[in-house]
Each structure stands twice: as structure tokens, then as C-alpha cells.
């Protein structure tokens, strides 16, 4: 499969500019992330709150300017541009908001919201816009008369479907799904996941799937990257990564996820959740790691191969295996 998107040593700073008597505050939310997404793939990014998942997505999308690193989309270099310009060049990447209800204007009928996107992207014929909206509503499993409804008249699952229809109208290649199943009931989640699989096959989409729900990621994704404090600590084929997690953090994360069979959870993760304001030296995970040694505190581990297409950044992954 040809590569669709590549990020090389991507770094993003969040913060305020310096003001009168106020020094600039900045947090490095994404620090040296390298990843490559192949065409047609579902690529998962998992990690806890504050690990930089959403900032990574916003940077790839062009909403956030990268401080360093390079983004290549379909073989073309697209980084190094101001946010407005960057967003234009990256029209092939579209983002589905975490809370699709908040992304819809409560005063507008859903159809008008869908229409606006097409107008902005230069489809001037009203008939063509209407035809494309009707076709897309059908593709996401909604009747054409849903265009006449207001957002508050939709259920959570229907709002998700509208959110998908809205960006698919723009015919993207890569769709970034930010927590697409958060807050959904189990039966609705199942139908949304099913729809995502159908749309991917039908429109030849590539997904970047951001989630903290490991059971869902395991189900949906081909490859998975695990993030901790702004860095990717492990990456590999979903099957290999879930069956043989190499990084101690991945293990802890998998052990913490509750399962239906009620199997005893693994040892819990000691220490406080990390903060970008106090990034530990050496391996960022070492203060909470049961295998940490003096080396871990002194030196950040490099990414090394742990299997076919499976990489891990840990000094001691071999011993843990």
C-alpha cells in the first residue's frame, strides 16, 4: 500500500505568546512523533488524557502549527506553512469532532450545515449540492428528510452520522476520528463502528482513529501507536501489539482495561498521571515503571524493532517479554 501521510519528528508547542511583563508559556504537547499511514489503513492512536493525541491530530490537520518536523501528504511536503494556508493544502484530511452535537449549529437545519461545507469548497450548482447531500445521507443510513431537522432533534448516534456525512461530502482521503464512540451506548456504538467499516470500504477511506477505548481500537484498527506524554512509545500491527505488548506502559494500559470475562486486572500503575509541565528526564515513563533502572532515568530510550513492523521505545523491553 502506498503511503498517504507521513509525519517525521513532528513537534508541536502549545502556549501563549509573551505579553507585557508576561513571559511566553509553552508546553511541548507533541514531541518528536514519527508515523506513517498507508492508504486504506485504519491507524489507531491510543493514550490517556493529556498524552497529545488530539494535538497530534490538529497538527496533521493544519489547525495547529508544528514547531519542528515535516508532514508529507500523498508524497507532497505540506509542512512549514501558516495555519490558514496549511489547512487549505490539507483539504484531503478531514476531522470528525469528538462531540458532533457541539459541531452543529443549533439554529441551522442539518441540511443547511451540510450545504455550507459544499459551498465553501466551491460547488456552485444548488442542484448538485442537493443531490450530493441526499446521496450522502443515504450512505450514512439516514432518510433524506433528516436534512430538514435541527440538531436537537437528533439522537447521539444520528448526530455522529451527520458529523460523518458532513465531512465525507468533501471527499477526503484521510478522516481523523477523534473519540468517535465516546459517550455512546453499546448498541449505538456497535452500529457506528459498523457504519465506519462500510464507509471505509465504499469510499476507499483511510482512518486515523484516536481513542482511549482499547477494546474498540483493537476491533477497528490495523495498526496502533501508543502515546505517552507527547511521544510514541510503541507502534505496531494491532494484533501483535495487543497480543504481545512490549512497552511497560502499553502493558499497564491493557491490564487496566476492564473486560467482560472479569479476568483479574494486572498490577496497577503507581504514581500520579503525568503532566507536561514536569516532564521527567530520560525515559518519560520511568517514574511509574516497575522495570526502571538507572539507565532509564538518565537516557531516553530509542525506538527499536520488536517484531515485524513493531517498534518500541524501552531500554528493557526484552526482559519484560
Amino acid at each position: 500500500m502506498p503511503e498517504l501521510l507521513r509525519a517525521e519528528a513532528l513537534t508541536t508547542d502549545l502556549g501563549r505568546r509573551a505579553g507585557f511583563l508576561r513571559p511566553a508559556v509553552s508546553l511541548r504537547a507533541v514531541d518528536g512523533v514519527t508515523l506513517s499511514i498507508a492508504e486504506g489503513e485504519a491507524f489507531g492512536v491510543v493514550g490517556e488524557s493529556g498524552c497529545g493525541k488530539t494535538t497530534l491530530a490538529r497538527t496533521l490537520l493544519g489547525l495547529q502549527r508544528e514547531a519542528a518536523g515535516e508532514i508529507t501528504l500523498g508524497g507532497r511536503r505540506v509542512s512549514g506553512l501558516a495555519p490558514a494556508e496549511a489547512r487549505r493544502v490539507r483539504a484531503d484530511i478531514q476531522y470528525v469532532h469528538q462531540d458532533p452535537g457541539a459541531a452543529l449549529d443549533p439554529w441551522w437545519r442539518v441540511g443547511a450545515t451540510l450545504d455550507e461545507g459544499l459551498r465553501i469548497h466551491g460547488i456552485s450548482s444548488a442542484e448538485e449540492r442537493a443531490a450530493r447531500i441526499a446521496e450522502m445521507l443515504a450512505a450514512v443510513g439516514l432518510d433524506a428528510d433528516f436534512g430538514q431537522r435541527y440538531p436537537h432533534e437528533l439522537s447521539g448516534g444520528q448526530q455522529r452520522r451527520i458529523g460523518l456525512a458532513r465531512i465525507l461530502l468533501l471527499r477526503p482521503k484521510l478522516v481523523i476520528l477523534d473519540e468517535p464512540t465516546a459517550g455512546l451506548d453499546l448498541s449505538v456504538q456497535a452500529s457506528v463502528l459498523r457504519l465506519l467499516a462500510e464507509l471505509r470500504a465504499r469510499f476507499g477511506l483511510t482512518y486515523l482513529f484516536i481513542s482511549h477505548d482499547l477494546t474498540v481500537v483493537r476491533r477497528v484498527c490495523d495498526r496502533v501507536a501508543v502515546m505517552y506524554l507527547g511521544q510514541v512509545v510503541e507502534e505496531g500491527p494491532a494484533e501483535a501489539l495487543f497480543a504481545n505488548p512490549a512497552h511497560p506502559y502499553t502493558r499497564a494500559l491493557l491490564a487496566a482495561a476492564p473486560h467482560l470475562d472479569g479476568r483479574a486486572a494486572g498490577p496497577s500503575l503507581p504514581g500520579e498521571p503525568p503532566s507536561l509541565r514536569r516532564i521527567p528526564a530520560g525515559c518519560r515513563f520511568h517514574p511509574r515503571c516497575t522495570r526502571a533502572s538507572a539507565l532509564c532515568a538518565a537516557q531516553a530510550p530509542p525506538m527499536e524493532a520488536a517484531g515485524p513492523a513493531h517498534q518500541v521505545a524501552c531500554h528493557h523491553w526484552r526482559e519484560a517479554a
Partner: protein
Amino acid sequence: MDAALVIEDLAVQLRGRGEVADILDGITLTVPRGSVTGVVGESGCGKSTLLRAILGILPGRATTPRGRILFEGRDILPARAAKPHGRIGFVPQDPYLSLNPVFRAGDQILEIMRRHAPGTRAEHRAKLVELFRAVQLPDPEAALRKYPHQFSGGQRQRLLIAAALCCDPALIVADEPTTALDVTTQREVLGLLRELVRARGLSMLFVTHDFGVLASLCDEVSVLYAGRVAESGPTRAVLDTPTHPYTRMLLACHPDRAVELLGIPGAVPPATAQPAGCRFHPRCPVAQPDCRQDVPPLLPWSGGRAVACPHAARMEAHALA
């Protein structure tokens, strides 16, 4: 059976705009002393109204409820019944919204104790420090003087657990207390709850929509659908061999278990227009003519369970995971 809480045939309706919403109908469940009983169901099944009825905070537009809620030998449901202040502790869902940001967290809990617990202010403070220690908050003395924003999400949930325990309750009711937390934090909080129930001889009613959490915490479970109990019994039996068509289809949606993600056709009926007979019949694959007229009673089933479906055996033959 020695029970901490018994709910018998509870029905609650809400009035509004000339409509009557049938929120709960014929809920019967028992929380055995010293155990954790789960209530699981999707949005709109009546979980929150059930909690409100137990806590005596039904909204003003609720009609006079029918049925009984027996706690410590008394029916606490009637509006004029003496409320068991402090004897029932409540752990809310969202640790971010449940504390007033402009008051010290410790003072907010001390205020509850001043109203409902005997003793002097100094005794209350000493007890709260001991409780902070029991819920494993770091540096309990200092925690007393901190504001809510100075705690992490997991720590705030621990604060709220301490608040629920501050008046020596016999029963804890918890409303999805871990949904807002990351999996590793969730694991810690669930472990703490289990430990507190064991060490203090508490009983707990735990509302959730997450079957994984249910499996790891609850001894008994009641599955709610559209305001009625569909199935109840020991958690392991219900999860391993779900019997009611709704429970079976819902569990088949779980990514851990699903062979193919199917979802459940149709949607939960609005509370203002509940179908006659079995409320699940419009979505049920094995519905019979009598399901449209007769309300199915909760029938005893193998493994100490009760199932509200006279045709559950047909589901065995139905091709479903």
C-alpha cells in the same frame, strides 16, 4: 436474605407539556448487605431516575410514585417519610462538576458533616483526615486546605468518595463514577471502592453502562430496558449466559465478544410513547403476538436469575452469538 435495600414494584412518571413520561415501571430489586449490586442499561432506561428515587430527590414534576423503597426497615419513598440523611452516601458521575470551584474541597465536605453527623468541628476535621487517608489521597492534612482545581480527576473522585462516606452510611449509591476517568485511574478507583465495601462492610448500588466495569466490580446485576427490569441475577451468570433477548443482543454488541458488530435494530422508545406489552417487542427478533399485549413478568430462571421474557428459550434457537 439480609438486604441493605429493597425496591418493590417502583413506578415513577414525569408530567410535562400535557404529556406523561413513563420513566420507571415495576422495578423490583434487592441490594444484599455487604455486596455490590449493579444496575446497567442504555441512555433512557431510567437509571438516573432510579437513583433519584432512592436519594429522595425526584424532580417536582414527578407524579406520586408507586411502590416501596425499604431501607433499614422503613419505606423511604413517600414524600413525607423521614429521609435517611447521611445513611445513604452518593458518589456522583462527574468529579469535575460536582465540587464548587470557589470553596476549599475540605470545607465542602465538612459542611455536609455539620448538617448530618454528630460531633464537634474538630472531631469532624479529624475524621475527614482519616477518611482522606482511607481513600488514599496523598498528604491528607494538606488536602483539607486545597481547592478542587488543585486535585487531578482521579483525586477528585476520591474526594467525592470520601464525601459519600463522611456520615457513616450503610449504603453507597454510585452513578457511573468512573466514566470521566482514564482507564488506569478507573482501575484504581474501582479497586478502592471494592476495598472500602469489604473493609467497612458497606453495601453498594452501582449504576453503569459499561459491562467491563460491571464484570470487575458487581456481584449482582439488574439489566434495565425502557424503565423495566429485563433480567437480573448474579453478574457472572448474566454475562456468561445472557437470557433475555435484549441482554443477549446488547452483549453481542460488546467489542470483546462480538463476532460481527450488529447493533440492535430500531431505537429505545421515547418515555412518552412506550409500546404496549413488552417494551422490547418492536426490536425483538423472537417477538410473539402475545408480546404486544401482555407485560412479561419477571420469571425465575436457572442460576438464581430472573428474566422478564416468557419466550427467552426461543432465543437459544435464534441464530445469534
